[in-house]
C-alpha cells in the first residue's frame, strides 16, 4: 500500500525551526504528515507540545496555514475550518488536526466523537507520547500501566500508573468511521502511507501514531525511532487499520521481542518488578489473542 516512500516524499518542510526537544517523536510525526499532505493542508493543533514549540510570536514555524485551537477543541475547530473553507468555495485542501494523547483521549474526546459522528471531512492525527508532556509528564488516559509520571509516582505502595491505556483506535472505529489506523514513528513509511491513504478518503479519518518523548520516557534523544520500533516489535503496540467495517493488521512480528527489555531501557518503567512485567506481558498476549481472532492480516 505504500505509495509514498522515503524516496518519493517531498523535500519541502512545513514544520521547521521550532523548539521541540531533541529527539521529539511528536514533531517527527507532524513533519512527516505535512510532507505528505502538502501546502494546502490546514493544520489545527490544540494547546500542547506542538503548539507550544511552534507558535511563539514572532517565531511561527508552520509554512502551511496553521492555527492553535483550545485544548478541548481540536476536532470542533477542524470542523469549523473545513465547513468554512468549503462555504468559501475551496475544494483542494486538507483539514488536519495534530493533538497529543491527553488532548485526544481525555479533554478532546467529546469533540472528536462529535466530529466522527458528523463524518466531517477531516484527518485527526493523535501523536501519542503517553502522558501530558508539555506540562511536565503527568498521567493521561493513554499512559500505559506501570508508567511513572509526575502524578503517578513509583513508590513502595504504588508502582506508577495503575490503569492500562484506553484504546482510542478501537473507540474511533466503534463510531464506524470511514478510516482509522494505528502507526508508530518507528515505522515511518507505514505512517506516511496511512496519512496518504487518509487524504484520499472522504469523511472523518483518525490516525493514532505512537510518538515517543525521550524527555518523558527516559530514553536518549537518538533512541526515539528505535524505541518506537521496539514497542511494535514487542507487541505492546500494533500497526492496524479499520476500513469498511473491518480491522486489518498490517504488521505481524514473527516472534515478539522481550517486553522486559523494552520496559527496562526506559526511565519511566525502571521501577517495575517481575510481577508488574508479568501483568503487562499477560495483557499483551490477551490483546494479541483478540487481534489474531478478529483482525485480518494484510501481509503474507
Amino acid at each position, binding site marked *: 500500500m505504500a505509495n509514498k516512500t522515503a524516496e518519493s516524499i517531498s523535500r519541502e518542510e512545513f514544520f521547521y525551526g521550532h523548539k521541540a526537544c531533541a529527539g521529539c517523536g511528536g514533531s517527527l510525526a507532524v513533519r512527516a504528515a505535512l510532507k505528505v499532505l502538502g*501546502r*494546502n493542508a*490546514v493544520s*489545527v493543533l490544540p494547546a500542547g507540545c506542538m*503548539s*507550544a514549540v*511552534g*507558535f*511563539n*510570536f*514572532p517565531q*511561527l*514555524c*508552520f*509554512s*502551511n*496555514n*496553521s*492555527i*492553535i*485551537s*483550545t485544548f*478541548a*477543541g481540536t*476536532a*470542533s*475547530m*477542524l*470542523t*469549523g*475550518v*473545513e*465547513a*468554512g*473553507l*468549503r*462555504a*468559501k468555495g*475551496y475544494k483542494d*485542501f486538507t483539514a488536519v488536526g495534530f493533538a497529543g494523547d491527553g488532548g485526544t483521549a481525555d479533554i478532546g474526546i*467529546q*469533540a472528536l*466523537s*462529535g466530529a466522527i*459522528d*458528523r463524518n466531517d471531512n477531516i484527518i485527526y492525527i493523535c501523536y501519542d507520547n503517553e502522558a501530558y508532556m508539555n506540562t511536565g509528564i503527568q498521567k493521561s488516559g493513554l499512559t500505559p500501566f506501570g508508567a511513572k509520571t509526575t502524578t503517578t509516582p513509583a513508590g513502595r505502595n504504588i508502582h506508577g500508573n495503575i490503569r492500562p491505556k484506553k484504546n482510542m483506535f478501537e473507540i474511533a472505529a466503534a463510531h464506524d468511521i470511514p478510516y482509522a489506523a494505528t502507526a508508530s514513528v518507528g515505522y515511518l513509511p507505514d505512517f506516511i502511507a496511512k496519512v496518504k491513504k487518509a487524504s484520499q478518503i472522504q469523511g472523518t479519518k483518525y490516525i493514532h501514531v505512537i510518538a515517543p518523548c525521550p524527555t518523558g520516557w527516559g530514553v536518549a534523544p537518538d533512541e526515539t525511532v528505535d524505541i518506537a520500533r521496539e514497542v511494535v516489535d514487542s507487541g505492546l503496540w500494533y500497526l492496524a487499520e479499520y476500513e469498511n467495517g473491518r480491522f486489518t493488521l498490517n504488521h505481524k512480528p514473527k516472534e515478539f521481542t522481550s517486553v522486559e527489555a523494552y520496559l527496562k531501557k526506559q526511565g519511566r518503567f525502571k521501577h517495575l518488578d517481575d510481577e508488574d512485567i508479568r501483568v503487562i506481558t499477560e495483557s499483551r498476549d490477551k490483546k494479541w489473542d483478540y487481534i489474531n481472532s478478529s483482525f485480518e492480516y494484510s501481509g503474507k
Partner: protein
Amino acid sequence: MSRKFLSGNEAFAEGIRLARPEVISAYPITPQTIVVERLSEMVEDGSLKAEYVHVESEHSALSCAIGASAAGARAFTATSSQGLLYMAECLYYAAGGRFPIVMMNADRSTALPWNIYGDQRDSLSQLDSGWIQAYAENAQEALDLALMSYKIAENKAVSTPFMANLDGFVLTHTYETVEIPDREQADRFLPPYETDNRIDFDNPKNMAFSAGPDTNYIFKYREHEGVLAAKAVIAETEKEFAEIFGRQYTGLTESYLTEDADYILITLGSIAGLCRETADKLRSRGVKAGVLRIRYMRPFPNEEIARELKNAKGYGVLEKDISFGNEGAVYTNVNSALKKAGLTINGGNFIGGLGGRNISAADIEDIFNHIADGKDGVHFLGIGGSDNG
C-alpha cells in the same frame, strides 16, 4: 418589507437569515433552542445557504464558529446560561483572535439552583471576555440587532465578536408584530464578509499563536481598542440602518424623559418598557421620573450615562444580576462612569428578576420612591436591603 407575528427568538432568526451566515454551529438549550430550530428549517428549505453543523456541545459550538471565521466565513451560533458558561473559554479565544462571530444569548439564570427562566447573570458574568454585548428590549430590536451585529463586528477597526442578548422567555418567547426587511435592502446594508484575518493559501498564516510577556500586552491593548472603536461604528451603522430601513436606534443607551428628570432609573433589556410606563405614571403625579436603558454593556456608555445623569438628584440601577459579596455588575459600571465624570449623585442598586421572578409595576414604583428618598446601597426586590459596607 413584510410584517410577521414572531417571538423574539424567531425575529432574531429572521435577522440572521437576512445576514447570510455561511456557517452555523447549533446546540440546543432552553430558551434559545427555537433560534437554531428556525435556522435549520431555513437551511432545509433553501432560503438560507449555510453549512449547518450539529455540534455536540456549546464549547464545540463556539470552537467550530472560530474555525469557520478563521476560514473567512461569516459564522453564527446561539446559546444561553449554562451553555454560555460551558463555552466561556472560547469567548475569550474568539475575542483575542479578533474573530467577528455573532452569537445570540438567551439571558437565563445560572445553576444552582437549576432554573430555566430569565435573568442576566449569564452574560453579565462575561463582560470581561472581550465581546461586544448588546441587550435587546423587544423582538423588532432583536431582528434589527441580528442584521446590524455583523456590520459592527466585521468593521475592520472593530473586528470583535458580538453577543446579542435577549431576555429568556420574556423576550425570546413573547410574540410581537415585527417588520422584516427586504432581502435586497438587507444585502445593500450588509455586504459579504471580507477580511485578511483568515487562512490564505497564497500567503499561509500561523493563527491563534502564543505571545510572551514582551508582546502579549500589545495584542490585549489592540483588543481593547477594537471594542472601543465599536462606539463610533455602532453610531454609523445605526445611521445607515435608519436610512435604509427607517428605524433609528440611539446608540449605546436609550433615554426616556431624562432631560429634566430628577430621578432616573437605569436598566437594560425587556423590563425597560414597564419602567417607562411607570415613569409616565409618576410624571402624571408631578414626579420628574426618567428612564435610561443601556443597550450596550460593552463598549460601556460611560459618556452617555454621565451626560444623562448630570442634572439628576438621584438614580437607581435595576438589574437581573448580583456579583455575590458586592453588588450588581451594571451598578458597578454605572458608578464608575459617574466617578470618572466627577458626579456625586445618590444612587441605589435594585436587584430583581433573578431566576425569572416577576418584576411588577409596583416594584418599579417602589424603586423610584427609594431613589427619591435618597437611598443608596443594594436592595433585593421583595427581600430588602443588604449591608454593602
